[in-house]
């Protein structure tokens, strides 16, 4: 049996990023399960869109170099294949595939949870490296702030909102962009710009309280 390469300090950042990826996969899978399970009037296109989102997130995790080199340690092969089969099935034969889809998604969630647990164990079993990495990173910013383009687009989104709330949302959008991986920031800020008119409409909505209606 081939020996696994030891985990290095550089691997830690990749492991943490992988945890983040797996959290996204879990979220997408749960959203898809809920959509299929609960929506009486199923919009198949919505289910397909969510399934594509799931595959994209699984692919991100699966294609991380760390996952490829550590092979069985962080095995995502089965989850990757299931996610792709799921989308293929829903595209080609949705009526027949829909009943099987829930089972497949649940299996993806189980496999991802397993990988997540293994990554957590790897991180905690290399606590000495975590401590060393923390020492090396002391004084450095925890994450790189968003770049100019992304910040500029966030400002565009805020300018579409009512003046009294622009400062609040500017801060909130900036905080979100700061927290997310760099590869997600541009798509995130485009969605903020796209949904800004809806935010504006929602903020202008008259509050409706629970109670008897005329």
């Amino acid at each position, binding site marked *: 049996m081939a020996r696994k390469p030891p985990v290095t300090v550089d691997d830690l950042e990749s492991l943490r990023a992988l945890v983040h990826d797996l959290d996204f996969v879990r*979220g997408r899978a749960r959203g898809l399960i809920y959509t299929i399970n*609960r929506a009486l009037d199923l919009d198949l296109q919505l289910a397909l869109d969510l399934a594509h989102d799931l595959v994209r997130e699984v692919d991100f995790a699966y294609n991380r170099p760390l996952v490829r080199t550590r092979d069985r340690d962080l095995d995502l092969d089965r989850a990757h294949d299931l996610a792709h089969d799921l989308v293929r099935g829903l595209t080609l034969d949705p*009526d027949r595939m829909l009943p099987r889809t829930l089972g497949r998604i649940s299996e993806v969630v189980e496999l991802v949870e397993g990988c997540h647990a293994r990554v957590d164990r790897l991180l905690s079993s290399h606590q000495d490296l975590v401590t060393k990495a923390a020492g090396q990173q002391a004084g450095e910013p925890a994450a790189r702030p968003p770049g100019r383009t992304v910040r500029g687009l966030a400002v565009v989104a805020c300018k579409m909102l009512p003046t009294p709330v622009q400062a609040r949302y500017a801060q*909130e959008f900036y905080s979100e962009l700061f927290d997310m991986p760099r590869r997600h920031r541009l798509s995130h800020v485009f*969605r903020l710009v796209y949904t800004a008119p809806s935010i504006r409409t929602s903020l202008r909505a008259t509050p409706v309280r629970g109670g008897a209606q005329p």
Partner: protein
Amino acid sequence: MARSGPKMTLPTQLVLRALLEHPTRPTYGLQICQSAGLASGTIHPILARLEAAGWLTSSWEDIDPRKEGRPKRRYYVLSKDGVEQARYALAHAHSSINRIGALRPRTTGSEA
């Protein structure tokens, strides 16, 4: 007694479901997105509607950004009334009984 409130679109239901997993625990936008399985950046209209309806309250976290090395986050939590309203709304979101062919895909063009 009919209750009113935000329209129960599927994304709204997903957000409420995510919030109801831990109704008293404040969560921030990205966490809600992940739990709900929705694309980030798409839930702010939903959160704004829920806040406008009084189902949700929000506040800034109490940290020193310089010390933490990151900006403050905006945390959301269901109000007391909001928890009840959300549970009621989710329970009744699928009570329309006049839908047929629920699992059939939308068809375009002429039928065979």
